[in-house]
């Protein structure tokens, strides 16, 4: 790994690192050599600064650049940050810009007509089915968000305030699902809710029902249950972090001022944990609105969401501009809703005194 701290250093005396054992002969040689070279560099620099007075501009340039680099914290930071930034510009920003561009173009056969047009967006608004699916997606993930955050809050509260020993084990237990295969977690619901699945076969073998229940799988409820389960862990961590940060003496102060347990929770704990709640809600609402796997697996015809529509445009029909317009409008719509929601919640909580 080349560390960009070296940017400045390389300009002074070239790369001079090697990973050999410290204190080895080569090291000693190198350091002596470096010392000698530095003397030369210093002498040369003196010489250069004199000569640049006579109008020799180019040698002074690197000295000045180096001086600027050394003096500026920001320059060093940006240089160090540049690999990540360039990666993200190339792989995140550029594609998103292209996506926006595509949404204003037209698919003609296998080619794309790059004349600007708002037709794709008009198409979306005019076709009731698209609008319906959009609202359906919003409603479903709104419900998922509500359920998930509602269930996660007490859980996070328990870990933050109730667990004294081995908190770490609880935290690991709650983070494992975050990292493990989402596909497989969603898939497990398919085998649970299926026509010949776990629930139906279980109930039949217990004698509770004769015929399999057909309403379990392939509908909106199945999607909501699966998403709520799949995203459960996502909500806990932000809420937990905001609860954990609360200074316990604040609660003592509230008690000292006459608040009972409920009042303390409602007037101190909850408002202070709000950033976590909002964070959790956003972290669930945004990706679930755009979720593809779950509706594709357990949604059936009535449980399809916006992402399924986008996928069809891209991989089946091949109308990329229309797919792009769908994606952009969905993102914009979700962004607006999220901002409205966060503002509304903050305003509501400000009324708690």
């Amino acid at each position, binding site marked *: 790994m080349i560390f960009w701290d070296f940017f400045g250093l390389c300009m002074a005396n070239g790369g001079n690192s090697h990973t050999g054992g410290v204190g080895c002969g080569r090291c000693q040689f190198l350091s002596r050599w470096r010392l000698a070279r530095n003397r030369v560099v210093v002498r040369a620099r003196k010489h250069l600064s004199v000569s640049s007075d006579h109008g020799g501009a180019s040698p002074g340039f690197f000295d000045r650049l180096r001086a600027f680099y050394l*003096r500026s*914290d*920001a320059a060093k930071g940006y240089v160090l940050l540049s690999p990540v930034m360039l990666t993200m510009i190339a792989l995140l920003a550029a594609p998103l810009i292209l996506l926006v561009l595509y949404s204003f173009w037209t698919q003609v056969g296998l080619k794309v007509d790059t004349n600007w047009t708002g037709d794709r967006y008009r198409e979306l608004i005019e076709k009731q089915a698209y609008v319906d699916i959009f609202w359906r997606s919003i409603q479903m993930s709104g419900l998922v968000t509500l359920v998930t955050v509602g269930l996660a809050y007490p859980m996070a509260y328990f870990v933050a305030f109730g667990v004294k020993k081995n908190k770490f084990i609880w935290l690991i237990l709650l983070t494992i699902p975050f990292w493990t295969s989402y596909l497989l977690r969603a898939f497990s619901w398919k085998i649970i809710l299926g026509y010949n699945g776990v629930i139906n076969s279980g109930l039949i073998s217990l004698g509770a029902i004769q015929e399999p229940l057909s309403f379990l799988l392939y509908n909106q409820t199945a999607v909501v249950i699966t998403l709520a389960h799949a995203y459960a862990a996502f909500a806990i961590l932000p809420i937990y972090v905001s609860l954990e940060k609360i200074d316990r003496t604040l609660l003592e102060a509230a008690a000292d001022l006459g608040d009972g347990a409920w009042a303390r929770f409602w007037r101190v704990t909850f408002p202070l944990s709000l950033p976590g709640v909002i964070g959790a809600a956003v972290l669930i609402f945004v990706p679930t609105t755009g979720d593809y796997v779950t509706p594709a697996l357990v949604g059936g015809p009535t449980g399809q969401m916006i992402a399924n529509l986008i996928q069809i445009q891209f991989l089946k029909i091949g109308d990329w501009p229309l797919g792009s317009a769908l994606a952009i409008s969905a993102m914009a719509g979700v962004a607006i809703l999220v901002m409205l929601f966060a503002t509304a919640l903050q305003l509501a909580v400000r009324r708690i005194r």
Partner: protein
Amino acid sequence: MADNIIRIEKVTKQFAGGAKAVDDAHFNVERGEFFSLLGPSGCGKTTLLRMIAGFEFPSEGEIYIDNQASSLIPAYQRPTNMVFQSYAIFPHLNVFDNIAYGLRKSGLSGGELKRRVNEALGMIKLDGFGARRGDQLSGGQRQRVALARALVKRPKVLLLDEPLGALDKKLREEMQIELRQLQKSVGITFVFVTHDQEEALSMSDRIAVMVKGKVLQIAPPQELYEAPGNVEVASFIGSINLIDVTVKSVGAGEAVLDGAGFGQLRARAIDDLKAGEKLVAAVRPEKLALVSSRPGSGSFVEGTVKASAYLGDRSHYHVFVKGRTTPIYVAAQNAERAMTGGFDTAKSVYVTWDWQSLILLRR
């Protein structure tokens, strides 16, 4: 010309979007000197030290270390070493390896390395602690290890960034004496950053007072205290009473002044004093004394005791003088044992002083 190991020439450091952390600093540090940078937190003293060390680079000006222009030489190529405020003991290395860190870099190994490190351990009285990890040491021991780690490199200048700040009072006082002795015995120039004026006064050969990025005065401790160069230095070092005065006349080495609430005052003249000039006369609280009856001669002023505090070896009084908004602050030595007495609140008293203790300062 003195032998200057460090020359700071018109050095200014401006951080992006911020005020000047160091503003046009210009001074020298002599070889073998114990030099302190003293100032309140955020005054730029640490930034200045970090520029000498090579962690920050001046926006303007030049720093010469041992006559080499160094402002753009990175830390690892400078003949300076530093004792960090947090000590920065490498947590993944034991004491021996911490002290050996810089020596290994210089290519030392085997017996020579061992000898040098053990010598350093002896110097800081931690023989046999080599195998301990940093987390098994007390604060004072960590401070010593940091010191040894820097000194073992035999730097031309040792930089110390508030090295005693984290220690408790008693240990700090012990370390002040030890550090001073150590500096004399190794003969290395120390540049010592502190916000503790007593620390700076007791240890340093010379002190630079910094306030808001500016170096206000550089002087030996006694001069700094007894003859501060301006009002800011006077009020930063110790406590002081300030009296606004107007010059009435200037005689041979003596000036006659008119002070608000004090009437006519005498003080030693300073250069270029002109009649009618407005100045500040300053006097340290311990140069003042309280008496209950009007003195026959000398400098004095009448006042009323507003508040008093008994501190054992001395007592502090706030004396209200007519014509002044701020009280006069008097620190009286309790030279005699007295279970009662002192000066009660609301009592009318006279504040007296030797006229030569007044210091004239320009705003």
